[in-house]
């Protein structure tokens, strides 16, 4: 009976998703495929940014953290809100102002030179593919829980469904389906919390405060300060302007929409984290205390909701995964076409669109193959965060703000940031006690300074 209800909920969800994706219509030009003709309004930009960053980590992960360490992770999550607000105030409008800019690599190419653009493109495609592998892996776990499908089959289903609408509809389909997914989970999860508070939580405000206080004290007591600093650094910098967000900044209708979309998404993240952490705190009165963090949300909802409600939650979890995955696939394909293929051959628009579509399929296939080897969702995400910020952010932000950025500084910063991050994340993970993102970012900044002092400006620009 449970499987029938779950299957029915998933079927209704898939029918609605197909309807929404078809209504988004196929992209006819590369500008439509890559930046949706720069016509997206504020509500869709906001919904898409929020749907992209709310992945398994910011939903299942935060409920588990609230369960174990109360409001500690709400404080850590504030770093993420601050990051989004700063991007909205300082970076997104500057990106949107650039002419003929389709990707972050284009921005870097315009400010530095062609070599820097290609290097930024290679790093971006590698990161989009890795992030996609993590998302496909997370989605396959949920499908596996619902239907008991073998891993390879659930991985294939997630990859094929997402790649199909992203391949034809491009960014517009991705944004419109993101809005659909956002509506689903931004309704279902808070309603679950309110339902639990109204019907399953005994003792009122005093009991909630007591549980929250006990959990938060546990959290501060059991988490070393250096680990808290590492979490704050990862939340502050790890996802800053990854390619899907950069594409949304570029696809906004105006610079004002671009700025306000990020600011609103930052404020929304605080509200979202509050809801997730509060669910974890309420779950302390319902779920056994030795429940693993990643299973708290599923156990909690399974205990308090009727079967149909549980099935709806599973749908919300699938939608959380797909909304992050489609943007990553589209961003990876656009970057591959614009920053790599188009730097070596002057493709006309129709061929660029075709290249973008094929790239989406190739990235989805590579990510699906890699997804089978992802050890855990959180480890995979942290590894991607550790590399992205040091590799790209110094070159991008200094490039946008300095009057005459030097190409040598961009190249040195991107190479050093990537190498140091990969070394401390994968090759020598136990040599230092701090997260890899911190030394890697420090090295990238030093390398940028070195290159800026020694390099020449790009006179051909």
């Amino acid at each position: 009976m449970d499987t029938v209800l779950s299957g029915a909920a998933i079927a209704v969800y898939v029918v609605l998703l197909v309807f929404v994706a078809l209504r988004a219509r196929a992209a006819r030009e590369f500008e439509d495929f890559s930046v949706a003709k720069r016509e997206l309004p504020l509500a869709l930009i906001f919904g898409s940014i929020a749907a992209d960053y709310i992945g398994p980590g910011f939903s299942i992960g935060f409920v588990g953290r609230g369960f174990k360490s109360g409001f500690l992770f709400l404080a850590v999550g504030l770093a993420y809100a601050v990051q989004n607000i700063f991007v909205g105030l300082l970076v997104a409008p500057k990106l949107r102002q650039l002419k003929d800019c389709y990707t972050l690599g284009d921005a870097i190419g315009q400010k530095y030179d062609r070599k820097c653009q290609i290097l930024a493109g290679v790093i971006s495609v590698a990161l989009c593919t890795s992030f996609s592998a993590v998302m496909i892996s997370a989605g396959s776990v949920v499908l596996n829980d619902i239907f008991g499908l073998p891993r390879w089959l659930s991985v294939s289903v997630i990859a094929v469904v997402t790649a199909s609408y992203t391949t034809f509809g491009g960014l517009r389909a991705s944004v419109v389906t993101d809005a659909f997914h956002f509506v689903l989970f931004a309704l279902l999860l808070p309603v679950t919390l309110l339902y639990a508070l109204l019907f399953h939580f005994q003792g009122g405000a005093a009991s909630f405060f007591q549980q929250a206080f006990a959990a938060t004290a546990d959290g501060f007591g059991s988490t070393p300060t250096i680990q808290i600093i590492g979490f704050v650094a990862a939340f502050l910098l790890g996802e800053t302007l990854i390619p899907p967000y950069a594409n949304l900044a570029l696809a906004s209708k105006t610079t004002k929409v671009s700025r306000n979309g990020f600011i609103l998404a930052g404020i929304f993240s605080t509200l979202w984290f509050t809801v997730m952490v509060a669910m974890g705190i309420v779950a302390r009165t319902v779920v056994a205390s030795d429940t693993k963090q990643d299973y708290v949300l599923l156990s909690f909802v399974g205990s308090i909701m009727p079967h149909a409600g549980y099935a709806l939650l599973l749908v919300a979890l699938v939608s959380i995964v797909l909304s992050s995955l489609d943007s990553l696939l589209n961003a990876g394909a656009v970057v591959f076409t614009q920053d790599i293929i188009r730097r070596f051959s002057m493709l006309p628009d129709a061929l660029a669109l075709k290249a973008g579509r094929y790239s989406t399929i190739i990235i989805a296939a590579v990510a699906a193959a890699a997804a089978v080897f992802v050890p855990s969702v959180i480890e995979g995400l942290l590894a991607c965060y550790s590399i992205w910020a040091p590799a790209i952010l110094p070159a991008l932000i200094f490039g946008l703000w300095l009057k005459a950025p030097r190409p040598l500084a961009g190249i040195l910063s991107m190479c050093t940031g990537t190498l140091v991050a990969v070394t401390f994340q994968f090759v020598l993970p136990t040599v230092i006690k701090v997260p890899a993102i911190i030394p890697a970012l420090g090295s990238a900044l030093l390398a940028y300074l070195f290159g800026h002092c020694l390099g020449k400006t790009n006179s051909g620009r």
Partner: protein
Amino acid sequence: MKVFILVLVVISALTVIGSSVWVAAALIHAICPPHAARPELDARNPPDDISGS
């Protein structure tokens, strides 16, 4: 203080729900453009021949 924290949590949940309604309205507008957006069906510009002949 105790009631204040719970009220903040409830307000956050309601605001998240409100955001979803706002995005839902934009989504409907994006996939089903309003009637007046199609000039031939605009009440101020009725089609010349509505008899079907």
